[in-house]
């Protein structure tokens, strides 16, 4: 079938519509979902089509997350909306001590098909408590899968796989990308968790990214092309499981890698990735793996400061220069 140009929000709503139609055990719960179809309008159409299956909750993040666990253990496939990813802090026990561990602690008796859907990221002048990107915490928590799509087509294919997965999945979408459009197939397609996409082929350097980082790489790659630097862009899409194969293949070709994410640099996912690459692909590398991420401060409110803290395409280009200089 044909592709349409639609937003990430529309892609999300479409995918969930299809999945909820297919499987009546799927439902969505969270704060302020019904009246505005989610706080970002991300569930447009769903409240009308699936009355009783989009559930408003009190402001009780710990219990909301725990409800996801309890419902998943008893035959449902809940999607838990965390409102803002910053508030995972209010449900960390339910996410990390319960959801992540219950199957393992039980010796594999049960499955936990639950998606924790978390809108994250900065750039909205929303300040320190509404702007974080916390995916790396969950990469450090065995038992969880971690998905961070960038383009609308990824959103559709990945949320479907996440919803069908029998394990707890953390699903992060950047708030500033909801309105961003791209081609999305009308097909009922899945993108398997754990498969990266080479979104632009190139031979000089590998840009490894996910979520909002992808668009920075796209922009940087265009600039670099003007300087005759041919960047390959690998959109990881899933951080756990991680597609090391695709990463390795790219670096075997380019011998240089730059990792880009919006989360603050220290302890971000780039750390894990850089550590693995320099270990597993040591002999392939002609330069150190560089990381681009937000500066290590909370996100400040005032625009010029916020912009200064966040990574830009120029930072990506500068990192590329640093690794291609050698």
């Amino acid at each position, binding site marked *: 079938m044909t592709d349409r140009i639609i937003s990430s929000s529309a892609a999300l709503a479409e995918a969930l519509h299809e999945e909820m139609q297919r499987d009546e055990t799927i*439902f969505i*719960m969270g704060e302020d979902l019904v009246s505005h179809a989610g706080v970002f309008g991300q569930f447009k159409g769903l409240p009308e089509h699936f009355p*009783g*299956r989009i*559930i408003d*909750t*009190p402001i*009780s993040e*710990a*219990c*909301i*997350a*725990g*409800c*996801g*666990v*309890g*419902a*998943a*253990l*008893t*035959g*449902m496939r*809940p999607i838990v909306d965390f409102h803002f990813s910053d508030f995972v802090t209010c449900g960390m*026990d*339910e996410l990390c*001590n*319960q959801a992540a561990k*219950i*199957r*393992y*602690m*039980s*010796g*594999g*008796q*049960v*499955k936990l*098909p639950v998606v924790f859907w978390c809108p994250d990221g900065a750039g909205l002048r929303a300040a320190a408590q509404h702007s974080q990107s916390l995916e790396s915490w969950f990469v450090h928590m*065995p*038992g969880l*899968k971690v998905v961070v799509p960038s383009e609308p087509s990824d959103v559709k294919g990945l949320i479907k796989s996440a919803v*069908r*997965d*029998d*394990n707890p999945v953390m699903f992060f979408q950047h708030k500033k990308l909801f309105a961003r459009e791209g081609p999305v197939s009308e097909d009922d397609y899945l993108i398997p968790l754990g498969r990266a996409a080479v979104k632009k082929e190139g031979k000089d350097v590998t840009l490894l990214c996910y979520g909002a980082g992808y668009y920075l790489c796209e922009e940087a790659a265009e600039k670099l092309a003007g300087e005759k630097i041919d960047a390959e862009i690998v959109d990881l899409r899933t951080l756990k499981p991680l597609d090391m194969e695709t990463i390795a293949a790219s670096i075997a070709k380019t011998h240089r890698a730059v990792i880009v994410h919006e989360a603050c640099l220290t302890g971000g996912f780039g750390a894990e990735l850089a550590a693995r690459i320099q270990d597993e692909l040591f002999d392939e590398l002609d330069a150190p793996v560089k990381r681009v991420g937000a500066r290590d401060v909370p996100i400040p409110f005032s625009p010029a400061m916020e912009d200064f803290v966040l990574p830009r395409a120029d930072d990506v280009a500068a990192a590329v220069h640093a690794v291609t200089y050698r």
Partner: protein
Amino acid sequence: MAENRKKLLELYRQMVTVRQFETMAGEYFAAGKIPGFIHLSIGQEASSVGVCSCLRPDDYVITTHRGHGHMIAKGADLKRMVAELFGKKDGYCKGKGGSMHIADYSIGILGANGVVAGGLPIITGAGLSIKMRKTDQVAVCFFGDGATNRGPVHEAMNMASIWKLPILFVVENNQWASTTPLEYACSVEDLYVRAAGYNIPGEQVDGNDILAVQKAAEKAVIRARAGEGPTFIENKTYRIKGHYEGDPQKYRTDSEIKKWQDKKDPINRFSRVLFKKRVLSKKIVDQIWSEVQTALNEAITFAENSPFPQPEDAMADLYINS
């Protein structure tokens, strides 16, 4: 009448089973056969057995770090329980969970929990799931007096109430949370009064009187199955053993413990009732205790004979392929 007699005897047998299981666990722990730490429910048998006696196999139960009694009362297999405590391959969790994470999902036990009050948000999800699936199951969450001061309890009670979920919140108020007495940590003397803040019926029950517990639970179960919402039951009882096996218990006196033994002991109390009703006799008592001991011995033999997991087994059971 014969039917009733049978039921009463079954209650008695269950309580004895819990008591003997816990006694055995304490001994095997002391002997170094059980790794880690264990929390025993001796003295609290009326609560676990009384509540679970009102449940069907397809009802859900979430328990705590002090969960052996709830497991047994819900119908768990002693063999696999002991094997789990021993860390053996045939244990319920293949040795991955131990006492604190023991679970049998096939009989509706949605797990013990090492996080105090960790079960309350999960039971709320189970209740919601029942409501969405339109069955008449009920979901029971046991928790301690100490747990009542954690935030998730508040969130769960509110949510269960607004949605009228079929849940029994059962506090086992044994008056101590580790080294801390209820009267210090809790702003109210009687925990059931908090239920009013959620528009949930709350009741305090003599938690060492199994028939009183059963009566309260029965009422709550009927209410839940009828779709009328949750109930809060406070079973007032007492923890006879230390918080964990090996607890030096500097925080309380022997005489305080004594007060709750003998006459107040839930098994003794129930047996007095049954003797009076002529349901029990010395002979039946001996028979039950020895049958339970036999079953327990079998369970121990089973567990002893079960192999330890292979070290590499640690890598299994994290993710399910889907």
